């Protein structure tokens, strides 16, 4: 069987997910033998334009990105969003709630019109995608599992559980008992609850579970001393785009 050809692309991102790919592969050299990487700008000069699987890191945040995304969609059999920027808009979408002109002027002053940009979106807002590997950054094991699934000819899938389930299985002390706050109850598991394990509350980088009870969690956050600004800040580190979509669909409170 011919080895599947794989390409990596990045749009607006920190390249941390691609670095995580490099780190994952160094522990699994057998996967490097099972696939052919034809494009990975961060790590290699060779550029192949013939590929079956495209991993896309980063958000779409300027008009010029759309043509490239469409081209990738046409060439690839499977398009996989790699990480929160591609999956959710990630931290890039924080600015979507701010007036764009203000944001650009704040950083670039009266030269703001030199640099084209618009609100940051997940790539699924531009082209249809086949699967997602969530997280900021992606989880190494989940990436390896996803590639193994793809090599077996099936799409990776993620069980619709909240982070709390993994956190309990780890035997962590809930951070709420330590005077901190956490989005674990509404966030999709799969990261092995790594943030609570290292003493921090979850910020929701993997996105929402399918039926998040956001009003109930807001009440809990308020009971733990957060004001409206703090609650909004917590829920907009990674979830700005998803929540704006939910609000538009009138599901949010």
């Amino acid at each position: 069987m011919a080895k599947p050809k794989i390409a990596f692309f990045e749009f607006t991102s920190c390249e941390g997910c691609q670095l995580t790919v490099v780190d994952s592969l160094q522990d699994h050299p057998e996967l490097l033998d099972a696939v052919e990487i034809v494009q990975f700008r961060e790590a290699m000069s060779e550029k192949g334009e013939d590929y079956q699987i495209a991993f896309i890191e980063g958000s779409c945040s300027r008009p010029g990105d759309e043509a490239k995304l469409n081209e990738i969609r046409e060439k690839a059999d499977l398009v996989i969003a790699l990480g929160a920027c591609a999956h959710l808009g990630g931290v890039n979408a924080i600015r979507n709630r701010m007036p764009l002109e203000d944001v650009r002027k704040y950083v670039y002053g009266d030269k703001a019109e030199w640099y084209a940009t618009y609100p940051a979106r997940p790539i699924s807002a531009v082209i249809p995608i086949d699967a997602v590997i969530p997280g900021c950054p992606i989880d190494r094991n989940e990436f390896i599992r996803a590639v193994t699934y793809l090599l077996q000819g099936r799409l990776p899938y993620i069980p619709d559980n909240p982070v709390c389930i993994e956190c309990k299985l780890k035997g962590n002390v809930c951070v709420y008992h330590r005077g901190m706050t956490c989005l674990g109850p509404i966030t999709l598991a799969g990261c092995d609850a790594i943030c609570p394990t290292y003493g921090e509350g979850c910020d929701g980088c993997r996105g929402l579970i399918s039926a998040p009870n956001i009003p109930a969690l807001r009440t809990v956050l308020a009971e733990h001393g957060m004001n409206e600004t703090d609650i909004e800040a917590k829920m907009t580190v990674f979830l700005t785009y998803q929540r704006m979509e939910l609000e538009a669909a009138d599901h949010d409170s």
Partner: protein
Amino acid sequence: MTVKTVKVDVHHLTRVEGHGNIVVDVQKGELKQCELQIVETPRFFEAMLRGRPYGDSSTITSRICGICAVGHATTSLRATETALGIEPTQQTVLLRKLNFYGEILDSHILHAYMLIAPDFLGVGSVIPLAKSAPDVVLRALRMKKLSGDLCAAICGRHTHPIAMTVGGFTHFPTTEELYSLRARLEAMLTDVTATVELYQTLPIPDFERDTEYIALRKDSEYSFIDGTIASTDGGTWPVSQYRDVTNEYLVPHSSAKHAANQRQSYMVGALARFNVNHDKLHPQARAAADAMGLKPGCTNPYMNTVAQVVEIAHATYDSITLIDKLLERGIQWEEPVAPARLSGEGTGACEVPRGILFHNYVIEEGYVVGANCIIPTGQNLANIEADMRALVPQILDRSREDITLALEMLVRAYDPCISCSTHMLNVAFE
């Protein structure tokens, strides 16, 4: 005398972090255009912090760059702590330094082995090297894995750190983890020696251009976190006066801002640190520099990678010393130090892998009202272009491919981290 018309246009330079183009246009022997264009999407991190609780700053700014995630987080925490009058404990200082070394090692190993060495060995990436020189690749992977594990033991993961917080940490490595890391670092010393030996054999291009070198300096150590801004042209500045040094300005061909201090441009990064602080290096790192022919006062930008190899040696040896100190003290479970006030302005400065990084925040009643981040690659851009302008006339007699490669190698030597600084390369010949 060469009367030549050459256009170099390298679109999206590979093996650098982020997107850049090199554009060089020589008409009849005259240099018309010489630019490193930064085409990375603008990212607006400074604006995103405004209105948020101060505790969010390090979480969000670490996402500026996956390679320098710990560097951004550390600098961000130092800015916030300065603003709010927080003095970190001795244990926090030691753990942060060790964590920082993990990132310096990770980034320098990635650059020296995966991004730079292929140019010298005539291949497009590290992947063919796995077949032709497996021992070299395995060594690089082994060293890189240890650097990542060092960060993971302290802050959860290198990209993006979890347990680092304002005033301290939310998680601590166990004594067993520290012992095991220490043993692995000891074992890595032979790999460090082999890296130095490899770089002794690589033909680093000859090219000299005197410039100003800027780095953080401390009396007590080879500084990576905090210190005073120091220049090889003379002069020191407290980090709070960083704007007097960086003097940022915008140019149309780059979404990253340029910078200039006492000359038209200056250089930051491993070579600048070496030129400013080489007297503070670990003796074994100084010996490595001697072995590779790197001397203070070096003005060859291609030697930046050699200076990184020197820092690989320094960071490895000093990490062992730091672990010994931590083991001797015994790890204490400490609550983060609480802020002394909730309003104030503070600047943090660190020497991240690519050079000096500044974060400046203004905080009012616990919320960020102003933020500014000045990134190393942005500070280097004007200097890279000045090097390109000096280099191109010297190599015009070469083939277009060789000119392109020389320019690509020059830009890569700076280890540009372009996704950071926006907040690449296209070279054309006729």
